[in-house]
């Protein structure tokens, strides 16, 4: 038997508390799982929250169809190992149904198309709470988001009319048709997540570590070359580079960084000394200063 629990990370205690509140306050919660490090961290926290019982809600992946293959392999393996239920909904289906239109041109991405697929899935499966791995340090509009963030019938975020959150108390009361987005790691920074992955020895997809990849340069960022998914101009020359990814989004909008960090300890060290923010490599946020705020108002996760 160990001594006392005083050395447990306060952020971990907070996240576990939030995840338990979701299970207790909602009828049908789901954990939004992208295969990225933040959602993998959420899965670990949920395991801890309910031990020795299983996680009492399923995972759902909104698949853009443009994922890094390594992420999908990893996702399927994790779900199998933990005996969890995984629901997958495809952006391709929303495109085929004519609900959204594929973007075209140099910066085409399926990232914002995910919103429609997500909202449809929430309605179809009657989810009243969606747990996500967003963090307030990622972006300025996210910095204003609550831990329990209420969305209306249209899945929209009303940033000027948010419920105050006092002390530890989370108010999850909603009307039929509304749902709540829940962010248990709101108060974690990128470094907190990486340090936790290191400490807990959590397995993550291989693309987070340095590997040789066919890439090309655009706007000072390094893009993975995949002619089916990522649009490339003829003068954008493909070269092999030693890179890793800091975030795992849609391939079409996630740039790589030069790195030779092949293990987690080196990654943590690299993040500690990084001079570019994590979302600096996400072209979807560079579209305008208010890009994230606009997407969130429309129901983006």
């Amino acid at each position, binding site marked *: *038997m*160990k*001594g*006392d*629990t*005083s050395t447990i990370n*306060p*952020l*971990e*205690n*907070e996240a*576990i*508390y939030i995840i*338990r*509140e979701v*299970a*207790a306050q909602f009828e049908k919660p789901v954990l939004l799982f992208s295969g990225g490090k933040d959602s993998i961290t959420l899965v670990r926290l949920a395991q*801890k*929250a*309910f*031990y*020795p*019982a*299983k996680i009492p809600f399923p995972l759902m992946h909104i698949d853009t169809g443009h994922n890094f293959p390594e992420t999908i392999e990893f996702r399927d393996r994790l779900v199998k190992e933990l005996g969890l239920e995984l629901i997958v909904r495809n952006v391709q289906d929303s495109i085929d149904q004519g609900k959204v239109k594929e973007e075209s041109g140099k910066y085409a991405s399926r990232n914002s198309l995910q919103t429609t697929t997500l909202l449809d899935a929430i309605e179809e499966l009657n989810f009243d709470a969606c747990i996500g791995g967003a963090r*307030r*340090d990622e972006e*300025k*509009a*996210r*910095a*204003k988001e609550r831990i329990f963030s*209420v969305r209306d019938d249209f899945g929209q975020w009303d*940033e*000027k009319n*948010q*419920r*105050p*959150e*006092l*002390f*530890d*108390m989370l*108010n999850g*009361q*909603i*009307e039929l048709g509304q749902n709540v987005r829940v962010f248990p790691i*709101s*108060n974690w*920074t990128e*470094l*907190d997540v990486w*340090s936790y992955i290191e400490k807990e020895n959590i397995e993550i997809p291989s693309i987070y570590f340095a590997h040789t990849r066919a890439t090309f340069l655009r706007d000072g960022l390094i893009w993975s070359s995949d002619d089916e998914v990522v649009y490339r101009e003829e003068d954008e020359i493909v070269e092999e580079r030693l890179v890793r990814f800091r975030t795992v989004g849609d391939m079409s909008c996630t740039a790589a960084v030069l790195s030779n960090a092949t293990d987690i300890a080196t990654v943590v060290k690299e993040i500690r000394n*990084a*001079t*570019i*923010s994590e979302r*600096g490599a996400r072209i979807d946020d560079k579209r305008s*200063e*208010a890009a994230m*705020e606009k997407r969130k108002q429309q129901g983006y996760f």
Partner: protein
Amino acid sequence: MEVLKIATAGSVDDGKSTLIGRLLYDTKSLTSDKLEAIENKSKQRGYDYLDFSLATDGLVAEREQGITIDVAHIYFSTQRKSYIIADTPGHVEYTRNMVTGASTSQAAIILIDARKGVIEQTNRHFFINNLLRVKDIIVAINKMDLVDFSEEKYNEIKASFETLMTKRDYQDQQITFIPVSALKGDNVVNESANMSWYKGQTLLEHLELLDSDDIYNRGTPRFPVQYVIRPKTEEFHDFRGYAGKVYGGDLSVGDAVVALPSQTKSKIKEIFFHDELYKTASRRSSVTITLEDDINVSRGDMLVKADDLPKIEKQFTATISWMDSKNLTNGNKYVLQHGVHKVLAKVDRINHKINPDYSGIDDTIDALGMNDIASVAFKLNKPIFFDAFKDHRTNGSFILIDTQSNNTVGAGFIQ
């Protein structure tokens, strides 16, 4: 890693965002892409300095109006600590945001413009942080560069703030005065070359040396049950664990406890954090507790030490901070959420409004509007298990939820 949550309070143009931006900049927490964005925007607006407020004002309306509307959270860390700053706006109409920010903070920075000194707003900022029993207060006297870094001016402002301090209820609050220039960087992270007369700590030094164990208000251990864990697997067939967070003090294996409201007695058998067993559950940790006896405990119930019961009552008086545009009036009914426990509450009597600037009370009112603070008596449909807010910050507070809109409409501090 220690985590310290800090609330900030200042009036419009006191330079709050600039101060936070300065903290980020001087601790090298701003990444080059964020810094570049600030540089470009500052240049575009024709400033000859870097406008650090651009680092924190996140919503479009805020950037347009150059003000902070909602509570934003800003993160930075040093070798020693992780810091979370709740950046709350300082306008009169945003009392609710200040109360919200202070409720999760252990320290607060109150900004004063050295040119203006202690103003009516300062009284409010101090009142709220005192009402919410925020343990450590830093009075940052800002814009010292605009008063020629004058020691006399600093002493003058300090003296008038000290007059204000004589009116406070919560006497144990630690208060520190620091003269700063957020714009120029004096005494924020780095020592000031312009104020050699000031021998105290810089703002960051002060924060770094705060003992986070000390600044969490202590009380007796309270364990509100969040969730009952019943795996029903072969290996854990009869397992019945109570999941929750421990508040106020510690609970250990073997402690004699009472479950509320049933008042059934038992002893703590095991304490789990994930799959590891511990001897003691320290305050603020999220654990799972099993008991020696098979008693009926469900969400909203509370485990407490047998020799240290809270009050178990269906009526009480509380200080209310009202946060909704729809008024609170006598006879109104609300859902009252006390920790994870929900009951129905009826407003029995509005005793008086409390002016949040130490200017006294008003006992002629019969309704509370947005941003009002008042003493209100409630009656409940079922008892809750509480302590006075002054003795227990967690177990003495609650929120009120509107039964129609489901919004959080008020916060309460039990007297």
